[in-house]
């Protein structure tokens, strides 16, 4: 990079330094302090006590694994739902495609709160889904979604589906012309065309979408808080509890640092997978 470019970048670098890096640094440092006994102030000195507590207390381990597997489930379900949707959008022409893409973007720009409140109505004991289930005679008693793990997973999928859809639509729209037709004429039925031609070619999109949905689910707070109704603890709700209710900032910071570490790990795994994919021989 030459000097000029550096000069031009400087304001942006300083801004991101202040806005992003400093809070992270502060978070990291704070996570090694401890709350003073019976006080709102932090005690003197540094220690790894918060991390020891995270590792030793089985409650936190439980929250850790629950958050991980709920995020993984939300990722897989999003992928399964998004693939056919993305395909439909990718093959539709002109105006229809633009409209469908705009519709995908709505939940992304509207923020998490509104759609989640909407889900509250859908999933409640007297909500739309339960009344449909009852109308069709599939159940007589209301199915409990709110405050349950499946309910939260449904909410996560609803909230983060666009993050899966966008990279998939992009990858599917860029499939080279006629390769599917070529595979078909060579004797491949539809499922083999998908397995051997389409999926390998859109793998980068699948990886990107999965990393996005996984990371967003892992760190989400609004969805598990509202749909979990305080009964489903996750990283997000736990960090919030510790910081705002228990007022143990150092411990909340440690939770946040672990969350960030997992996030970084997720991104690293994703980009490693992309690299391996790019240089795969056959």
């Amino acid at each position, binding site marked *: 990079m030459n000097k000029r470019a550096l000069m031009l970048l400087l304001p942006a670098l300083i801004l991101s330094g202040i806005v992003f890096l400093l809070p992270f640094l502060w978070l990291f440092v704070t996570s090694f302090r401890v709350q003073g006994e019976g006080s709102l102030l932090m005690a003197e000195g540094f220690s790894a006590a918060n991390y020891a507590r995270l590792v030793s207390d089985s409650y936190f381990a439980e929250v850790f694994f629950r958050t991980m597997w709920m995020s993984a489930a939300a990722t897989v379900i999003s992928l399964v739902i998004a693939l056919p949707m993305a395909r439909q959008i990718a093959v539709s022409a002109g105006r229809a495609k633009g409209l469908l893409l705009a519709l995908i973007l709505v939940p992304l720009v509207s923020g998490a709160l509104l759609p989640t409140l909407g889900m509250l109505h859908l999933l409640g004991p007297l909500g739309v889904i339960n009344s449909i289930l009852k109308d069709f005679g599939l159940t007589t008693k209301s199915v409990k979604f709110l405050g349950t793990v499946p309910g939260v997973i449904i909410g996560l999928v609803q909230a983060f589906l666009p993050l899966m859809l966008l990279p998939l639509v992009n990858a599917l729209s860029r499939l080279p*012309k006629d390769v599917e037709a*070529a595979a078909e*004429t060579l004797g491949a039925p539809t499922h083999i065309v998908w397995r051997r031609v389409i999926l390998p070619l859109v793998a980068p999109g699948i990886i990107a979408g999965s990393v996005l949905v996984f990371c967003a689910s892992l760190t989400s707070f609004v969805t598990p808080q509202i749909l979990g109704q305080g009964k489903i603890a996750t990283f997000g709700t736990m960090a919030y509890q510790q910081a705002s209710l228990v007022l143990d900032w150092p411990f909340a910071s440690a939770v946040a640092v672990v969350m960030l570490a997992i996030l970084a790990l997720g991104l690293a795994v994703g980009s490693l997978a992309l690299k391996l994919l790019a240089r795969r021989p056959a």
Partner: protein
Amino acid sequence: MAEKRAPDHLVIQKVMKNYGGSEPALKSVSLNVRKGEFLALLGPSGCGKTTLLKIIAGLEKATEGQMALAGEGLDAIPTYKRDIGIVFQSYALFPHMTVDANIRFGLDMRGIKGDEADQRIAEVLELVKLEGLSGRMPNALSGGQQQRVALARALVIRPKLLLLDEPLSNLDAVLRKSVRVDIRELHERIGLTTVMVTHDQEEAMSMADRVAVMANGYVLQHDTPETIYEHPASAFVATFVGSPPAILLPVEKTPDGYGIGGTAFMPSKTLSVAIDLQNGKPVLLGLRSDRLSFADQAGPLTITGEVHSSEYIGGSWLVHVALGEHRIAVPTRAKPPQFGEAVHIRIDEAETLLFDPDTGAKVALP
């Protein structure tokens, strides 16, 4: 012709295709391709050539009509069971697979594995002269090499029919000529029934056993290259085929005979009868430059015009003659006449083409 005709291999009957637009892409196409024949589908851009190829391969569904391959109805057979090899205009190689894996794909689908697969791959690679490149990825190949991989991939499954969609259009002019010969040679060696799409009339005429000329969703003429050149069925075919293509000149009746663009035209007896039979409607006279010459004086079968310009084309001249607002080029080996000089162009009755100006249909000589 004395030679025995091969039986029909592919039969297409009244195929119509409407994509949902105001006009169908194919209006009514009937064709037959004989076993071992090389057929060229020739037509201008957008006339429905690719559409017809895709319908044959099952990649598009015909709105109406039937097809049969080797005596078996195709309509109920899905693409992947048709055993039709196709080389796409874009080649459509699998970008994530090596040359070897690209070619092996079709064999895998047929459960052909191990030694037999290896042997067949080696065989087609030799056929298309690509030995030694089997480990390459498609993006590490030149356009000509990619085209040959696509051909090898289609051939290795030993298809019942080979379809080529403008196989030469992505190659440079020099390569195009040599691949043209290669494909023709390959066809002669393995005798595979082949349908090739092209909008290049020279390509169609030089490679194919028979040519189907298409325009506007119809097949206008389906015959050998010689017949299409010598006896075009319509004004469109005459002007689309041949280098040079035919030039159409309207013949009008004048008080003292016949004329073209206000200049004098003296037809033969037969021609004048044919023209008169049109009841005063003007007739289009189709002429090919390479069959014209100069005459010393006006007489039967001559057109009189004025020299407009001339160009030296190496060993001979091409003299552009003005017939009113029309222009026609006449080759000559002698020193060309001067600008403005009156000249008489001799035409050959046996090679003269007459067309109806409204329908473009051929007007038969009595």
